[in-house]
């Protein structure tokens, strides 16, 4: 599966809203571990910027927080190149264009990486100023390892 092109790990989130930082924690952990030739990007803003961020990437892994009602720290792995994210994980996003929509916009424009995997980490607290929960921190480390492994 390694056939040239950029390999990207993108963590999404907001560092000031508790478990919403999950994707950023994944990115930071991945950077600490060091992925051989894997670019690590932290994205705090608008998910639509993903379409530029993954420009030219052959393979990309995205990590983000989700709130689907599962236990905090639960990890969902989704193949976004195969089709839209399931509605239960597509929300909630406080952004006008959420992650699922940004992926569909990329698909409509023919601008998705050839391989695109999304890891969703189940969060439990999203209050302003809150620290990420222990369950999410542990899951972030696990996802960082798994994502680097996928991108190897």
């Amino acid at each position: 599966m390694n056939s040239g092109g950029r390999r990207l790990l993108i963590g999404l989130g907001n560092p000031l809203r508790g478990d919403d930082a999950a994707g950023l924690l994944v990115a930071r952990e991945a950077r600490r571990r060091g992925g051989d030739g894997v670019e690590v990007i932290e994205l705090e803003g608008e998910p639509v910027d993903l379409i530029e961020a993954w420009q030219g990437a052959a393979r990309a892994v995205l990590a983000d927080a989700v709130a689907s009602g599962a236990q905090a720290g639960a990890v969902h792995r989704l193949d976004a190149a195969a089709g839209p994210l399931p509605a239960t994980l597509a929300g909630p996003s406080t952004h006008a264009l959420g992650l699922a929509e940004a992926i569909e916009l990329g698909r409509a424009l023919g601008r998705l990486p050839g391989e695109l995997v999304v890891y969703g980490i189940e969060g439990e607290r999203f209050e302003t100023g809150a620290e990420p929960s222990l369950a999410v921190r542990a899951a972030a480390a696990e996802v960082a390892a798994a994502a680097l492994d996928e991108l190897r």
Partner: protein
Amino acid sequence: MSEGNGTRRIETPALARVEGEGAMHVRLRGEEVLGVELRIYEPPRFFEALLRGRALTEAPDITARICGICPVAYQTSACQAMEDALGIEVEGQLRTLRRLLYCGEWIQSHALHLYLLHAPDFLGFESGFAMAAEHGEVVERGLRAKKVGNRLIEAVGGRSVHPINVRVGGFHRAPERRALEELREELERCREEALATVRFTAGLEFPELERPYELVCLRPEEAADYPIDRGRIVSSAGIDVAAAEFGATFEEQQVPHSTALHARVRGRGAYLTGPLARFNLNRERLSPLAREAAEEAGIGAGCANPFRSIVVRAVEILYAFDEALRLIDAYERPKRPAVAWEPRAGVGHGVSEAPRGLLYHRYEIDDEGRIVSAWIVPPTSQNQRSIEEDLFEFVAAHAALPDDELRHRCEQTIRNYDPCISCSTHFLRLEVERG
């Protein structure tokens, strides 16, 4: 939806294409509108509490996290409030950089809203990506504009989201002129595309709605400047005050159905802030190209139809490209990236024009430079009453429409404001109840 007791109600689980989460509820008896409520339930005021006891230098970076779309607005209003409290002025090339950074934010924020969130309403699509399948070239134009806006923010602010180069007094490092000049070619290309976008928006069909808003925006003391980064607060009903008079001029009220406070002009009522206000009160300050494009688009003599705000945003994007190019031409790297200051106790006020309207910050700081109190009034909470009044009038005039059509038009009415509900405070649910 019909219910057994004769009540009709339409619900959408979450209003799409707005920033943040909220709900709207419309009640009708026959064709009489009984009430309209925009409900916002995320408590935003935690930020004001979070700031207390922090160093004044932290305010720009902390408040920028209120919003991933308009962080520059938060940083600018926060810096200017602190500078006011400290008694320093940030002028010359540092002001040029601040305004240039802000142009980048206007471009990326307006482009996102116009092309991906609002245009689908006029073209009959459920979403930006549904529209992309048929109007790929329009969406690509929007993404290019957004990208160059982001690059401008990166060049001045260090990165495109939550810039890290901004500080009280100016910047950590002033960019090289060359780094800005590298953007010229792409800015010029996107300016041409922005001109095409003004024409594109002018050709859309607009529902009829004209309202006698009290328009509120900034007006810079520099006669040639369209309001972006600073100015006095003015209104179509004669307000003309400095930022420090914000609290004496406007008041905020708790309403039971929303966690965002409602703002109004003291002794009067609702007011409107944002592109329509800026354009109507300052359009003679636009660049010649933007003015000409507005004329051609049929809004040269002003515009009171909130649905036409998409045309005004297109004109403002064009202006922001023009202005960014002008500012880059005028830029010379300053010797010092920031004005020096010493902490002192005081109160400061800062205002700027976020893409969606006036953003006011007020801070009280102690003699060691710690924040004693913070007060932040975002544009969407200022516009909340006007949004409800627009909805009331629109529904009253179109109550005979089928529920689905009415719901769609109500959502469009809300999106006219490019509301940033996450700034003002979460999901917009929409309910129409017919009794």
